[in-house]
Every structure is written in structure tokens, then in C-alpha cells.
């Protein structure tokens, strides 16, 4: 309510002020129309008196000021024309000073002053100097700022700049510079002083009001930058030091922030580059609350863009040692501003890094230096808790990755991992993922074990549990996602040299071993496959010269693999391990290493026996085993027999009859390998098939007993298909009679009353019969073979 009233009151006061101005303006116009100087002075002073109010906020005051400003333009036109009032400008200059109130007096003085300069009856610098001095009389911040802003406005086009009308006869652009600098300094003082008017409660409001006025102050800097005469030398020797002196001495955060930014934005980049030391020297002297990081960041951003704008300027950057200077300055700022939150410091480093990457893309040592400085700042502190700070660190670490598109470059930065050490576990993970993504995106190959070591050191947040974080809290899905990234990463670790590749794998193994049971199921498979790839590559080379010491042999790798897979036992993940063993067995088989292959199978079988308990899992596992075993060609008779025997044994011991049946008929393939030198033992094939047939029968009966109807004939049809397969492959033990018998059996089963029809098995059977029919009609050897079968 109070505030609402305040605003209403302000509107009322503004309205009163405007009315007052309009009232005086009426009489002023009349005086001007009748060329009455005395009256004109009287009413203009009266009009300007409205600006003496203290009750308006800057915003409203501005409105009032603009009204008065318009009227002053008319008055100026009148003053300009001596014929109208008959008073020489020099006398006029005195006459307006008779006004008793200072504010109207000074507005009038400025107005006449501008005409006085224009008349060139006296050197411009004298008038300017007098005006800027006399304006000291107004010490009220808002009124003073507007008055001086008026002075700046009316003098703007009358500065004795180079090649301007007002240069010469003792007036040089330096006078213009002096004038603007002085006005700037005074305005800044007034602006800063606003801060101390009013209670703390109003601070927020004050800050807002001050922000509304800041451009009045900043305008001076803009004018300075527009003065032609201000070349680099003048800027460096006069303008910049004086402006900075003001900025530093005012000890006001709002002003310092705005003005530093203003300097950076208003003057040319080239000047900044050449005066970097001076400019940067001011930063550590600013108040600790000043948002230096933003300002410095903008400076570096500008310089970065400047560097990017044309390659010709790059030598300048080197010549002035821009990087060193910026780096030093940042160091000093951080040192000086003890209270600066860590996020501020890091933001600065991010900007510096961006600058470095733009300007000195070839200087990795600079990048490392920046990171090193950051480490120094972070060291001795607890891990970062501030989320904004960690975000900045992530930015800091991501920037080089983006720039170089190559993690390998980042890996050579010794300080990179040290920075990461200061992140909390969660952020560390985020960063690790960023790194991995960068690698994936750019398809970067990490090719030495050293680099792998560094890399894993960087992403260790993903690889193992960090201290103090409990894994229970982790989101399952996130965890999977993370571990999948690690798994993907492993395929990017590659070297053509087998020895180095082995080293890499050893390194990786060393790291993932520490990952604990939750991670191993994710990390072991890619490592295993990567190793197998290497094995196959070595084998393919054929260049193995016996006797020579070759560090990376398939044997050694298999030993490693054994260890790796064994590690899964702690998880436990028997099914996964089993699959991996089988994969290894296949690879070993390809390398003609019988004992190794045998060992892998043994491991697989042991797992099957001891660990795989679930019947479904058993079915899957046994089929995998059979499939793999079938392809083995390295084994001698004895070993093979042992393994096949085991496999068939397991098959027959499955829990469900249909599973048994299927596993057993699958085992038949173990005895018939369709290769040139493959085993072709028709006898045992038949044995298997017969056995499966028996089991199918038993299954059928069991269904009959339990349900009162016979089950589907699917199993029989499947067995029939196996018969047909081996029949076609030419196994002598598979006779047409046997096939014929099986067909009849199926038909009988299907027709029995108790059987329930099953469309799937019916269709399966029908298409099998169609196939036989087709083969019969095909003629040739196959046709003849099929001929005896009657449908």
C-alpha cells in the first residue's frame, strides 16, 4: 500500500512539474515572440526551477528534464540571434549568471555557453572549462547528473576536435579530451554518491535507479571514443589512465562493473590489445563484489573475436604477450579478491581458455598452464559442492575437447586429470561421459597404453566406486547408460601393433577389475571381444616365427582372457561367463590350440554344472554349447568324445521333456559335421534321433496322462525334419523306411480322437510334406532318393 501510494504521489508530482513547465513556457514563448530578453530570462529561470524537485525518481525526472530540454532549444535559438535581443553574447554570458538559484542559472549558462563557443569570440576551451567547473555547484546526484548530461549534450558538436570548426587558436583536441574527462569524473562521482543516499532498506530500489542513470555516465566514454584526436598514444597515455583512476578510486561495485565493461565495449579492440597491461592492472584493484569475471570474460571474448576477425592481427597478440598478461591478471584478481566465490575464479579460467584456444590454438602448454592455475586455486579445498562452480569446471574441461576434437590432445595435458580430481563424484561422471562422447563423436582412436591409462584415470568416476558415494542411490538406468558408454569406449582403444594392443588391454583390465561386481558384466564383454579380435588378427598374420620372443601371442592373450572371465564369478554372472568362454573356445579353435580350447570348454561345462541352475537358462546354455562344440575342429577323438558325451548327457537331463527332446536331436549334429574332414558318424546320429523320438513319445504320453488329450505333434515334425536333413546329407543309417514310419506316426497321432488340433504344428507338418513332394518331383539324384517315400 505504501509503495503504491508512493508511485501515485510521484505521478502527481510529475504532473505538477509538467504543468509548472507548461505554465512558464507560455510566458516564455510570449517573451520570445516579443524579443523581450529580460522577460525571457525571468521565465526561463522560472521554468527551469521545476527541475529543482527532489521528489522524482530518475525515470520520472528524465521525463521532466526532456520537457525543459525542448524549451531550452527554443531559448537557444533566441539567444543565438543577437538582433532579437541586442545583447552581445559575452554580456549574455554574464547576465544569465545573475539568477539566484543555481540550477536554473547553470542550465542557462550552459545554453549561452554553447552559443558563446559557436560565436568563436573566445577560445572554446575557456568556455568549456568554465562550464565544467561551475557545474560543481550542483552536488545533488540526480540533478547534477542531468545538468552535466545537458552540458555534454550541448557541447557534443562544439568540441575542438581535430578537423572540427573549433580547433586552432590555442584550442586543441586535448582540450576536448580534458573537458570530457573532467565531466566524466564529476558525473561518476555523483553517480556513485547516489549509493549513499538513503537507507539500506532501499538499496535495491537505489540500485535500480542507479542503473537507469548509468548510460548518462557511460555516454562520456562514448564521446571520448568518438574524438578523432584520441589515437592510440593519447588513449594509452592520457585517456585510459585517467578513466581507470576514476573507476578504481570510486570504490563502487556498480560503477566499476559498468564502467569497465563500458571501456571494453566502447574503445577499439586494437587499443585494448596495446594497453592490455594497464587495463588489466586495474582489475585487481576493484571491489571484491564486482563481477570481474563477466567483464574480463567479455574482454577476452572481444579479443578472441578480434583475433578471429583477421589473421593479420595475430602477430600483435604475440608481440604484446596477450596470453601471459591475461593470465597474470587473472591470477592477481583471484589473489586480490579473497572473497570471490570459486565459481568466479573458474569462470575466469574458462574465458582465458577460450581466448587461448582462439588466439593460440597451437599452444597446448598455455592450455595446460590455465588448467594448472585452476588446480592451484582448487587445491587445498574440499571437493566442489557449488553446482555452478562444478558446471564451470565441466565447461573448462569440455572446451579443449571441443576445440581439438581429439581427446588425445587433452590427454597430453598433465593438469587435466588434476582438475577432475576436484569434482564431486556425480560431476566427475558427467565429465567422464562428456569425454567419452567426444571420443565417440570424433571417432578418436586411443592408441597407447599410456594414453589409455590417462584416459581411464580421467573417467575413473565411471569405472569404479568413488569414496563416499554409495552405489545404492544410483539410478539403475543411469548406471546402465554410463557403463554402456564405458563399454563403447573400449572399442576405441586400438593399436595396430599387437604388443601395444596387449599392453592396452592389460591396462584396461587393471582398471576395470577394480570396478566391482556391478560393473564387470558391462565392462568384461567388450574387453573380451577386443582381445579376441587381437587373437584373430595375430592368427591371420601367420608370421609367427618360432623361437623369436614375441610378447603378444595368442596363448598369452588366452591366459589373460581366462583371468578376465574368471573375474565374473564374483558377480556372479555364470551365463555371461559361459557365453564368453564359448567365444574364447571358438577363437582358440581357430588358432589350433587344442588344450586351450578344451580348457575353455571345461570352464563352460563347470559353469553349466555348478552355476546355471535355472532350467530356461540351462536350455539356452546347452544349445550354445552344442552349437559351439559342433564347429570345433581342433579336437582329437578323445577330447571330442569327452565333450560331446558330456553335452549329450546334459541334454538328456534337462527338466522338461520337450527341452530334452530338442536338445538331444540337436546333439545329433555333433556327430555329423558337414565339412570335408568333418566327423560323419551316422550311427550315433541315428542314436540321438531315436532317443529324441523316444523322449517325444514319452512327452506325448505324459500330456495324455495329465490332460487327457495328446499334445501337439510339433516335436515329431521337428524330428522328421532332422531325419530329412541327415537323409539328404547322405547318412546311410537314415533310411526311407524310417522316414516313412515317422510320417505315418505323425499322421496317426494327428488323427487320433484325443489329439487337439494345433494350427502351427499342422502347418509345419503340411509344409514338411510339401517339401518332400517337391524333392520327389525335382527329379535327378535327389528325386530318386526321395522316390521311395510314399505320402
Amino acid at each position: 500500500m505504501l509503495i503504491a501510494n508512493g508511485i501515485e504521489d510521484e505521478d502527481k508530482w510529475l504532473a505538477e512539474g509538467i504543468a509548472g513547465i507548461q505554465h512558464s513556457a507560455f510566458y516564455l514563448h510570449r517573451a520570445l515572440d516579443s524579443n523581450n530578453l529580460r522577460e525571457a530570462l525571468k521565465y526561463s529561470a522560472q521554468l527551469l526551477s521545476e527541475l529543482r524537485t527532489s521528489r522524482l525518481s530518475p525515470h520520472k525526472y528524465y521525463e521532466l528534464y526532456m520537457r525543459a530540454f525542448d524549451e531550452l532549444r527554443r531559448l537557444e535559438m533566441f539567444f543565438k540571434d543577437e538582433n532579437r535581443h541586442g545583447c552581445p553574447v559575452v554580456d549574455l554570458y554574464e547576465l544569465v549568471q545573475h539568477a539566484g538559484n543555481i540550477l536554473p542559472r547553470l542550465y542557462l549558462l550552459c545554453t549561452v555557453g554553447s552559443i558563446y563557443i559557436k560565436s568563436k569570440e573566445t577560445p572554446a576551451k575557456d568556455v568549456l572549462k568554465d562550464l565544467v567547473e561551475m557545474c560543481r555547484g550542483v552536488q545533488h546526484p540526480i540533478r547534477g547528473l542531468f545538468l552535466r548530461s545537458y552540458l555534454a549534450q550541448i557541447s557534443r558538436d562544439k568540441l575542438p576536435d581535430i578537423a572540427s570548426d573549433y580547433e586552432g587558436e590555442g584550442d586543441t583536441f586535448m582540450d576536448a579530451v580534458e573537458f570530457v574527462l573532467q565531466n566524466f569524473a564529476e558525473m561518476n562521482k555523483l553517480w556513485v554518491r547516489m549509493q549513499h543516499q538513503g537507507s539500506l532498506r532501499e538499496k535495491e530500489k537505489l540500485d535500480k535507479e542507479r542503473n537507469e542513470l548509468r548510460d548518462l555516465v557511460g555516454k562520456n566514454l562514448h564521446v571520448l571514443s568518438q574524438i578523432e584526436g584520441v589515437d592510440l598514444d593519447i588513449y594509452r597515455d592520457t585517456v585510459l589512465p585517467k578513466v581507470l583512476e576514476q573507476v578504481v578510486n570510486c570504490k563502487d561495485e556498480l560503477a566499476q562493473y559498468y564502467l569497465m565493461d563500458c571501456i571494453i565495449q566502447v574503445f577499439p579492440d586494437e587499443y585494448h590489445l596495446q594497453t592490455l597491461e594497464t587495463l588489466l592492472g586495474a582489475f585487481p584493484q576493484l571491489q571484491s563484489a564486482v563481477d570481474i569475471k563477466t567483464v574480463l570474460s567479455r574482454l577476452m571474448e572481444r579479443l578472441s573475436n578480434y583475433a578471429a576477425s583477421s589473421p593479420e592481427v595475430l602477430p600483435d597478440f604475440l608481440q604484446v604477450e596477450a596470453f601471459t598478461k591475461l593470465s597474470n591478471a587473472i591470477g592477481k584478481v583471484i589473489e586480490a579478491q579473497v572473497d570471490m566465490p570459486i565459481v568466479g575464479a573458474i569462470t575466469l579460467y574458462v574465458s582465458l581458455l577460450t581466448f587461448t584456444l582462439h588466439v593460440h590454438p597451437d599452444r597446448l602448454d598455455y592450455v595446460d598452464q590455465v588448467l594448472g592455475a585452476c588446480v592451484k586455486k582448487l587445491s587445498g579445498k574440499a571437493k566442489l559442492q557449488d553446482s555452478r562452480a562444478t558446471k564451470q569446471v565441466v565447461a573448462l574441461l569440455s572446451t579443449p575437447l571441443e576445440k581439438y576434437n581429439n581427446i588425445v590432445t587433452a590427454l597430453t595435458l598433465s593438469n587435466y586429470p588434476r582438475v577432475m580430481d576436484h569434482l564431486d563424484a556425480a560431476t566427475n561422471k558427467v565429465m567422464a561421459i562428456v569425454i567419452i562422447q567426444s571420443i565417440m563423436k570424433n571417432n578418436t582412436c586411443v592408441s597407447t597404453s599410456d594414453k589409455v591409462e590417462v584416459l581411464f584415470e580421467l573417467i575413473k568416476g565411471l569405472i569404479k566406486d568413488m569414496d563416499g558415494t554409495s552405489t545404492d542411490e544410483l539410478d539403475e538406468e543411469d548406471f546402465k547408460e554410463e557403463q554402456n558408454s564405458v563399454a563403447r569406449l573400449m572399442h576405441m582403444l586400438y593399436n595396430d601393433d599387437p604388443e601395444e594392443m596387449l599392453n592396452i588391454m592389460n591396462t584396461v583390465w587393471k582398471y576395470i577389475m577394480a570396478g566391482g561386481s556391478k560393473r564387470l558384466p558391462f565392462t568384461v564383454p567388450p574387453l573380451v571381444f577386443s582381445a579376441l579380435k587381437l587373437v584373430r588378427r595375430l592368427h591371420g598374420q601367420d608370421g609367427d616365427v618360432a623361437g623369436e620372443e614375441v610378447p603378444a601371442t595368442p596363448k598369452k592373450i588366452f591366459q589373460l582372457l581366462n583371468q578376465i572371465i574368471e573375474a565374473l564369478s564374483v558377480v556372479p554372472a555364470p551365463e555371461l561367463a559361459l557365453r564368453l568362454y564359448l567365444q574364447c573356445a571358438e577363437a582358440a579353435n581357430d588358432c589350433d590350440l587344442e588344450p586351450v580350447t578344451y580348457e575353455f570348454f571345461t570352464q563352460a561345462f563347470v559353469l553349466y554344472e555348478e552355476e546355471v541352475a535355472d532350467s530356461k537358462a540351462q536350455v539356452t546354455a546347452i544349445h550354445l554349447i552344442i552349437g559351439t562344440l559342433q564347429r570345433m575342429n581342433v579336437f582329437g577323438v578323445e577330447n571330442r568324445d569327452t565333450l560331446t558325451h558330456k553335452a549329450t548327457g546334459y541334454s538328456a537331463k534337462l527338466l522338461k521333456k520337450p527341452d530334452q527332446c530338442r536338445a538331444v536331436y540337436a546333439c545329433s549334429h555333433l556327430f555329423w559335421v558337414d565339412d570335408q574332414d568333418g566327423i560323419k558318424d551316422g550311427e550315433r546320429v541315428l542314436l540321438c534321433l531315436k532317443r529324441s523320438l523316444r523322449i517325444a513319445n514319452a512327452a506325448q504320453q505324459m500330456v495324455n496322462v495329465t490332460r487327457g488329450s495328446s499334445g501337439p505333434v510339433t516335436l515329431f515334425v521337428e524330428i522328421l525334419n532332422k531325419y530329412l536333413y541327415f537323409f539328404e546329407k547322405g547318412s546311410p543309417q537314415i533310411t526311407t523306411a524310417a522316414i516313412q514310419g515317422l510320417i505315418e506316426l505323425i499322421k496317426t497321432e494327428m488323427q487320433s480322437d484325443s489329439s487337439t488340433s494345433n494350427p502351427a504344428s499342422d502347418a509345419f507338418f503340411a509344409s514338411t510334406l510339401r517339401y518332400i513332394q517337391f524333392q520327389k518331383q525335382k527329379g535327378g539324384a535327389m528325386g530318386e532318393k526321395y522316390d521311395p517315400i510314399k505320402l
Partner: protein
Amino acid sequence: MNFIIGAFKPACHISVSFSDGKSRKQVPLKKENGQTLMVPLFQSQENILGKISIEPVSGKKVEHNGIKVELLGQIEMYFDKGNFYDFTSLVRELDVPGELYERKTYPFEFSTVEMPYETYNGINVRLRYVLKVTINRGYAGSIVEYQDFVVWNYTPPPAINNSIKMEVGIEDCLHIEFEYNKSKYHLKDVIIGKIYFLLVRIKLKNMDLEIRRRESTGSGVNTHVETETLAKYELMDGAPVRGESIPIRLFLSPYELTPTYQNINNKFSVKYYLNLVLVDEEDRRYFKQQEITMFRLAETS
């Protein structure tokens, strides 16, 4: 009616004219009735000469016991109004007793008249110069005519004219140092100076420079003092901080000032002061008054 008016009408018309009346500078003089009229300006040691013409109302004769003209310098105190003290009195007899039938003109001359004091119109005191023409008529009552004129005396610029510089303050509250470029100013002078704030612990609102005139009349226990603020000139708006220096530039020409008068004929004195007034936000006034000497500089035209 006409008869009655005619009866109270002066029997003759007296006019005074100065021989250099056309070229002599005229200055405004405020009369008792508030009207301002232009009168000739003289200074001390000048010759005052001219003509007095007396013209009887048509057809009448004026009998008289002699005609004279007096040059009077008078001081009138307002508590003793109407009672003039003549500090200067010179007489010239114009005619011996006789009769006047027609217009008659008499030349007169006062040579190198000593007029040490300036014409002054104060609050409690008035100093004037006048030419008084008297036609002495015995029983019928004398016919008297006055002609005012103004005397200004010019002073050469003083050989020594130091600036006024002073540091004043209230302990731990406000310390300022001010400087006026001179201690003696002529009437059309400009006061230049500055105020330097050494310590500001109070919230000032504004600062004015006042010109005050102190007129003291009488002497001893009967001394009567009147102070008048002739100018109030705002020097500063708002609250300065330590280290600020505020310029002063005050043109004296717009104000009606006189020179400083020191003990004029033991009757009165007029002194001038510059009063620096600082006003704080609670409208408390802090001031420092400083006497300045005013003098009249010969105008070089």
C-alpha cells in the same frame, strides 16, 4: 471654488536649473512618497552653479524681504522624523527686499563645495543634499522650493586588497575552508572564490551566499542596528562530500549597494557582510559572516 484654490496656490513659480544640466549624469532617487525621479549627480569639490528663475503667478506682485538659496547637506533620523540635522549649510543671497512683478532669473554659484558624505536612503536614516530657495515674506509666510541632487564620491582602488581566506567548522561535524578573492569590492565587482569541504558529516541541502547590509544609527546606548539581506545567491545544491570544492562567482552589479560608510558625522554607519549559509536537511542553518568593504570606483566610460 476657484478662488479658494487660487488662495492656496503659491504666489509664484520657482525653478532651479543647473548650468551643465543637459550633460550632467542623472541618477534615480527614491523620494519619501515612494516615487523615483531622476536627479543630477555631483561629487565633492565640484562647483554647483546654475540659475533660479522666479515667476509670479500672472498679474500678481510678490512682496518679499529678500530671496536666498541654500545648499544643505542633511541627515534625517527616522525616529526623529522631520527633524533634519544639517551638516553642511551654504547660503547665497539672491535679492534684497523688494517686489517682483515679472519673471526674474538669478544666477547662483557654490564653488568647490565640500560634500564628504554620499546620498543615502537607509531604513532608519537618510542623508540628502538639497538646494533650498527661500522667498522671505514676513507675515505672509515664506515661499520655499527644494531641488534634490545626489552626491557620490569615488574612491581609487585600494593599494592593498587581500583575499579573505578562512577555515571554519563544527568539531567532528563540518569543516570548510572558504576563500573570497578580495576583502574590498567596488560596486560592480565580481566576487570570485571557492568553498572547500574538508569534512562533511551532516547532510547538507544547499548553500547560499548572502550579502547583508548592517546599518547602525545613533550612538552609545541609543544605538540602533538594522540588518538587511540584499542578495541571496545559491552556490550549491545538494550534499557535497569531503574534498569537493564549490566555485563562487557572484556579480554585484544587479544589487543596489552603496559603499561602506564609517561613522558618518557621528550619526550612522553602513557596513556590508558576506554571509555564507549552509542548510542541512533538517533546515538547520550554519553560517559564517565576514565583513567586506564596499567602495565606489570611478566609472571609466
